[in-house]
């Protein structure tokens, strides 16, 4: 057995994971080779050192505060997801109060719409509905930065009710969990927006900051395939 072959097996030997036959071969080599024996001791010492590398104990009261704060966040999130109509209206009101330009813009848009709708022929307007985004979503990444993601139906799947399909940067993704996975693997929403500029998502319910943890083996495989394809198309 050569020294090069032994090096990779030293860690397995230390961890007791080397099959019996290989173990005897490696041990026999170590008996005759001072360099590999030194290597073995060095790895052994290093792993002992890593093992005793401790995590500093948090301050007293840390865990009580941790749970309390977590429960507050859960409560806030639940409240955010189910806003009452009154709270919503108050929110919109206060938001508009500080945006006089937006109000003016909305007024101009309303007048223009009136002209288009009520006076056909005066201002003929053609709307390309196939290309128009249905809506946009503000997705907030984990660093707090928000990005706008256009949510559009694909023209050939407009009326599809089942087998929801998503598209991320031109790639069709068949499962919501995989969409989330793609976004997470790309480093979150922020990174996605930075690297791919525009993400076209086919369904408005996707929450990319949700967990990917529900991925099963098959989904993961599909994800990996998608990712490799994405990488190829980027390069």
């Amino acid at each position, binding site marked *: 057995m050569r020294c090069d072959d032994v090096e*990779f097996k030293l*860690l397995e030997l230390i961890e007791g994971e080397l099959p019996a036959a290989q173990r005897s071969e490696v041990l026999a080599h170590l008996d005759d080779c001072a360099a590999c024996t030194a290597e073995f001791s*060095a*790895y052994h010492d*290093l*792993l002992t*050192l*890593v*093992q005793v*590398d401790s*995590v*500093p104990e*948090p301050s007293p009261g*840390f*865990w009580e505060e*941790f*749970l309390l*704060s*977590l*429960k507050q*966040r*859960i409560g806030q*999130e639940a409240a955010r997801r189910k806003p009452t109509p009154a709270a919503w209206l108050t929110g919109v009101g206060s938001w508009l109060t500080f945006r006089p330009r937006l109000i003016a813009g909305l007024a101009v848009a309303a007048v223009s719409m009136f002209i288009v709708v009520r006076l056909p022929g005066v201002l003929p307007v053609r709307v390309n509905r196939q290309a128009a985004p249905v809506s946009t979503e503000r997705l907030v990444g*984990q*660093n707090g930065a928000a990005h706008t993601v256009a949510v559009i139906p694909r023209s050939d799947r407009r009326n599809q009710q089942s087998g929801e399909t998503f598209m991320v940067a031109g790639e069709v993704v068949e499962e919501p969990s995989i969409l989330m996975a793609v976004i*997470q693997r790309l*480093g*979150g929403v*922020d*990174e996605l927006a930075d690297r791919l500029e525009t993400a076209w998502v086919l369904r408005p319910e996707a929450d990319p900051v*949700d*967990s*990917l*943890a*529900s*991925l*099963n083996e098959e989904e*993961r495989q599909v*994800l*990996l395939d998608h990712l490799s394809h994405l990488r190829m198309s980027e390069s």
Partner: protein
Amino acid sequence: MREADFELIDRFLQGDGTAFDELVRKRQREVYNLAYRMTRNAEDARDVSQEAFLQVYRNLSRFDRRSSLSTWLYRIVVNLCLNHLNRGSRALYATVDQHPDPVDLSKGSLARLEESEQADALTRAIETLPPQQRASLTLRVHHHLAHREIADILGVSEATAKVHYFHAVQALRRKLAHWREGT
């Protein structure tokens, strides 16, 4: 352990809110330790741990129980840490600017000083590991997971997980050897 976890999940899904508190209390330390060893920063570790439990709360009803709760939880924590490290965390940049605190020689012997310097050198060496290698090393050495489980958490093959681990140990050895030569 696995059955006890599933029992807690069942209780939570049946509307028992205290079951989630129990689950957090039971797992918070291992989650925090994993996050700390990945981020090497207490504040980041706390943020990541909170986010991880928040994601557990949101998705517990979708947890399919094919893997253990630990594996699922570790996957969430590791993914959050990888995202965090990829974006550039406090700890990641601390390695460039951070200087060790001045050492009070009167407090300890030379051996203790060397021990403390060695621990610092190890910390700095770990901070320079690529995130996937850092995850493999931590999950293996501190959480005692099999390479197969680590592969499952990282979403890579078992062979790749082993290679990450091997490269991490090799890199640490090289860096610490440099440190020894320098002292």
